[in-house]
């Protein structure tokens, strides 16, 4: 299915994706009494607060103890609950990875892991708080699905979707306001990529806030290069069909993500291409380095996640395609 969004993004509203998560969680709480929420002393900034106030008996303050939070959630899930555990992504799934591996994934405990403040755009807090490895460390875990919504509207849909999925799930989003590029009626299905603009020369596969930047890059090249933009909100299970089709039909792939260059979306796409359809590919991502403090926009540009970086990657990959 092709869903085309026109490139008229001039007046996009800007909202933090975590707001969508918070709204989705409250909606789930109203519909399903088995949904419970746990948070590691970050109830406001992870947007669990509205749920905690609406359903105090189903909210558990865990203190700054992410390992225990993951284990307690596993126990709740094994006894029939649907727990959402929330913290910053560097702490969960960062600090509690072993608990997620054994207590949650190996046990197939129906726990939803919510990693907030992911990416370099966390900004002033600096490298310790900028999760750039979380997709890699979750993607390798059996039984765990990994979702990176692009905006607040999609974050809400993804929150509701992972609650309906029976099994462990990880959802990550950044701290900052980002343009809302999807609408309430934009399709969202776990594991199903969303083609935002069609194109025949090259495909950008992006997720998180990099989807918007991919659309900007496509617009910048409009008239010169025909660019397909795919929102790959689900990194695992990845939509291999959409990747293979894009590779066959456009012959060149660029990935864009707010994550380390190894192990994330680019890695997942490269695996599909290597297995099924070897194709020239360029990856826009953090280049195997830690971040630093600074304003989000400055960091995004400095660490090569700007629109210009995507445009350059497209130019490189098209040269390789034509040389091939």
């Amino acid at each position, binding site marked *: 299915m092709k869903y085309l969004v026109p490139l008229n993004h001039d007046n996009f509203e800007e909202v933090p994706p975590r707001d969508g998560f918070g709204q989705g969680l409250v909606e789930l709480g109203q519909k399903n009494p088995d949904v419970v929420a746990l948070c590691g002393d970050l109830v406001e900034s992870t947007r669990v607060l509205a749920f905690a106030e609406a359903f105090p008996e189903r909210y558990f303050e865990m203190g700054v103890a992410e390992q*225990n939070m993951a284990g*307690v959630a596993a126990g709740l899930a094994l006894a029939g609950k649907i727990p959402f555990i929330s913290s910053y992504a560097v702490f969960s799934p960062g600090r509690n990875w072993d608990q997620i591996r054994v207590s949650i994934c190996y046990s197939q405990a129906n726990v939803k892991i919510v990693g907030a403040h992911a990416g370099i755009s966390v900004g002033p807090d600096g490298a310790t708080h900028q999760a750039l490895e979380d997709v890699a460390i979750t993607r390798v875990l059996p039984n765990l699905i990994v979702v990176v919504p692009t905006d607040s509207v999609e974050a809400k849909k993804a929150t509701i979707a992972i609650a309906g999925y029976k099994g462990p799930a990880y959802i990550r989003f950044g701290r900052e306001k980002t343009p809302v590029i999807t609408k309430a009626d934009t399709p969202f299905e776990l594991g199903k990529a969303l083609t935002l603009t069609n194109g025949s020369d090259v495909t950008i596969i992006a997720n998180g806030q990099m989807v918007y930047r991919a659309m900007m890059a496509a617009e910048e090249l409009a008239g010169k290069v025909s660019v397909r933009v795919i929102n790959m909100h689900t990194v695992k299970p990845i939509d291999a069909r959409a990747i293979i089709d894009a590779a066959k039909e456009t012959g060149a792939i660029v990935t864009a993500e707010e994550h380390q260059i190894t192990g994330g979306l680019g890695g997942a796409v490269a695996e599909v291409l290597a297995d099924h359809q070897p194709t020239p590919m360029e990856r826009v991502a953090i280049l195997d380095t830690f971040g630093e403090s600074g304003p989000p926009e400055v960091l995004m540009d400095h660490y090569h996640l700007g629109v210009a970086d995507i445009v350059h990657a497209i130019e490189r990959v098209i040269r390789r395609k034509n040389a091939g």
Partner: protein
Amino acid sequence: MTTKQLELKGNQIRQDIIKMLLAAGSGHSAGPLGMADIFTALYFEILNVDPKKPTWPDRDRLVLSAGHICPVLYAALAHRGYFPVEELMTLRQFGTRLHGHPHNLELPGIENSSGPLGQGLSQAVGMALAARLDQKRWRTYAVLSDGEHDEGQTWEAVMFAGKNQLHNLTAVIDRNNIQIDGFTETIMPLEPIADKYRSFNWHVLEIDGHNFEDIIAAFRHAKAVFEKPTVIIAHTIPGKGVDFMENDWHWHGKPPKPDEATKALKELRTLRGKITSEHE
């Protein structure tokens, strides 16, 4: 069951532990033997469970945190009727349901997955919270080793359970004083462990982990405690029942060789020569 019957059941479970470890050729000896009496008491006297309905929603939950002592859990489950006793001999072998560390999804009666130390108490806390949310009367029991109190997560869970006054949770600590590299008080001192639990708002009981009257009284006592979770510090003898294994930390993580198993089984069958077994 009478105390005599429980002692006999515990002895059968110890013999099966030796046979399982011999057949597997790897695994832990000291912990399972040391906890045989407590698991016997739990599965034959304390836990409200039904082996014919292992997923009955109102059953009591037993969470084994120290996954490496699973031979005693497997043997207790088999003797309680969850699966055939013969299956015990498949321990750790390819295709088995009796993995080296327990997995909740395969073998009936296994409530959780464990192995990496320090994770079980958190899981048990989650189950106890769920029971409280649903206003159910089933109880959660967590079996911990003393060594896994080195893990910070154990104390995160201790703090949380105390804060939340989880009186439907009972933890049992296998206080056998050994871990892989030596004695617990050498590796990382835990004492005063009872005071530590008390200071985190737990009710603390200390028992002889080989005295069935003590064990059963402590579990019943724990059910009567309100406003606090209870921890039972069970003083046990690692390798209990086999003379050359008792109190020797070298037996923490290794199985008996064939001649050692023969000696151990004879000792268990004859209660150290006190009675004559038909095998001899």
